């Protein structure tokens, strides 16, 4: 059953815990990812969310898109807030102040909330070993405030604070590898996922929630507004990211790597980059250099996965 669910849409929970009517841009695959994640988690979940697109679009007072208990506190602290929720519930249940119940404690944030400003709190929460899941929705920039670069913005992307210019390629630093940073905390479960592969994503979120202790899921979330692509192409670009091996899908369970998906045919990087406004300025030579880096990184992941077989 476990494996079948990856293939069968009929086995997916029909109820929506993150409901429609929110204010995300047309074609937002980050909102789609949230929806998938919430389907996988179910109702017995408490969500702590960082400031960012997903928080703003889902909670304009007095409205809410959330059917589960949900708390937003600040930009950098969902991991600390959920640490508190988990600790409080644990203590109260142990002391008999409230009845025992299995609850998923889930923190969520964008790439800025995760890889930049909230890195310390996240690292602290993972290190302390709370029974929690952290989901990072990586749209590769600070979208909520108008497409500024983050440390998760890929090399060569033009953003409003890393604009391509006469003497600049745009973002001139390499994308921070958050999944690997999570792995370095020796936590029991880490995975990468993408909302263009919804069943794989839901499967991983479920596994993360079932894992006792901290789990980290890094979700590539296509943002048509920030990537400057047509709104109807968000799913396509998620697939291209995975099929060109820019964003490989894998799990690390108790330190063991497992590749989730091997493209039938590895697409050239250009397939993924072309058509995205944020990469429009790149020359063939520059793309070639980036391709070499993608190849090296992908081979490294393959090696790690093979080692474990």
């Amino acid at each position, binding site marked *: 059953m476990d494996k079948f669910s990856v293939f069968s849409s009929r086995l997916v929970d029909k109820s929506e815990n993150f409901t429609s009517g929110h204010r995300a841009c047309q074609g937002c695959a980050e909102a789609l990812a949230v929806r998938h994640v919430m389907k996988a988690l179910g109702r017995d979940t408490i969500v702590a969310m960082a400031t960012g697109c997903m928080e703003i679009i889902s909670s304009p007072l007095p409205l809410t898109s959330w059917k589960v*208990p949900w708390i937003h506190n600040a930009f950098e602290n969902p991991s600390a*807030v959920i640490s*508190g929720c988990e*600790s409080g519930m644990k203590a109260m249940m*142990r002391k008999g102040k409230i009845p025992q119940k299995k609850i998923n404690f889930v923190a969520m944030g964008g790439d800025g909330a995760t890889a930049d400003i909230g890195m310390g709190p996240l690292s602290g929460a993972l290190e302390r070993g709370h029974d929690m899941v952290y989901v990072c929705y990586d749209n590769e920039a600070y979208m909520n405030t108008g497409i500024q670069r983050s440390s998760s913005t890929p090399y060569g992307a033009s953003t409003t604070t890393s604009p391509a210019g006469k003497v600049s390629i745009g973002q001139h630093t390499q994308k921070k590898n958050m999944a690997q940073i999570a792995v370095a905390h020796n936590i029991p479960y880490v995975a990468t996922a993408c909302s263009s592969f919804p069943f794989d994503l839901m499967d991983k979120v479920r596994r993360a929630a079932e894992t006792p202790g901290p789990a980290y899921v890094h979700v590539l979330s296509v943002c048509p507004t920030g990537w400057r692509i047509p709104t109807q192409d968000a799913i396509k670009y998620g697939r291209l990211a995975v099929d060109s091996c820019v964003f490989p899908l894998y799990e690390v369970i108790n330190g063991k790597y497992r590749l989730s998906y091997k493209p039938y045919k590895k697409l050239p990087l250009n397939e993924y980059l072309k058509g995205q406004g944020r990469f429009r300025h790149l020359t063939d030579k520059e793309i070639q250099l980036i391709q070499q880096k993608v190849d090296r990184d992908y081979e490294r992941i393959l090696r790690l996965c093979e080692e474990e077989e």
Partner: protein
Amino acid sequence: MATQRKGIEVSIAMADAVAQANVDVIAAYPITPQTHIVEHLSEIVANGELDAEYVPVESEHSAMSVCCGSSAVGARTFTSTSSQGLALMAEIFYIAASMRLPMVMALANRSLSGPLSIWNDHTDTMMVRDAGWIHIFVENGQECYDNVFCGFRISEDPDIMLPLAINLDGFILTHMIEPVIYEDNETIRKYLPDVRMKNALHPDNPVSMGCFAMPEIYTEAQMSREHGVRNSYPTIVKAWQEWGDLTGRYYKPVETYRADDADYCIVTMGSYGETAMEVVDALREEGEKVGVVKIRLWRPFPFDDFRKAVLGKKSLIVIDRAISFGGPGGPVATELRSALYGKPGAPTIVNYVAGLAGRDVSRNDFKNIILEGKAKAEKGETDGFTLYGLRG
């Protein structure tokens, strides 16, 4: 009911009180002079004397964030910090109040950098004066111990639901060994029963907390906070009254000492009150008609109590422990001036900023301040402030 009188470090007594209050979550980060409180708490938890989660966070920002999370699920929550720690958590300190999350903080008051200093004054707490917390100032070890229970009782009251800070002077109180009367657990249970917070985060009753506000609702949200803090006053008074009825130790928003017939009063907040009383006793012997007014409740500010205590006096000599650079004077004096402005019978105010970063203010200094202040008042020199004891 059995009470026990102990000679004990104030920080330890405070930690013992937190354990007696049966808290569920403690999240804190070490900073002098608060450390003894949280060290002792972690010891109590490690020894199984208190069943609680001690969350050893990686920063004060996370300490306050953890406290928000645990309070949001309805757990009884305690934290403690000082100075730079408070500054680091200031962002979340405000949010805790705006989300109406009950918790108690022992705020061991210390100066803010820079220059770096670990010693006591009130610059840290004045930074968060307007955050929407309830602020109590205590004067000695017993008050620290007692106000932990009163603090939780007030903070968690369904009509209040606000975080509460107990301001205690760093070192002057935290590191002092004092006689403290401990109440037995039965008394504490009676006064402070476990409560289940309404609308706590739980899957059985999903709520959304911390939603964002457009301009058409932000103003109303702020007004509701203003009501929340201001209207907490009667509950605070009642909680203190009931504590007094149980233990014989009564607290009031504004307390006075030999002030009834005084022409001049010295106004203090925190541990300076003790010294001020001694000095006033001595000055009374010399025939000076002086008294002490102590402000215990800083937020919500007890306007009526304060005015009742001072209207008709000639002058107040207000000691501030913080400075407002380029401003009208110390924060306390500034507020008191505005509380009295235009009121018939309002005394004038002479403002001293003293004891910054632990600079000792001795009995003799108090005497100087009172007499010098009185002379200034008589000459009408009541503008601005004087930085007492400035060298060079």
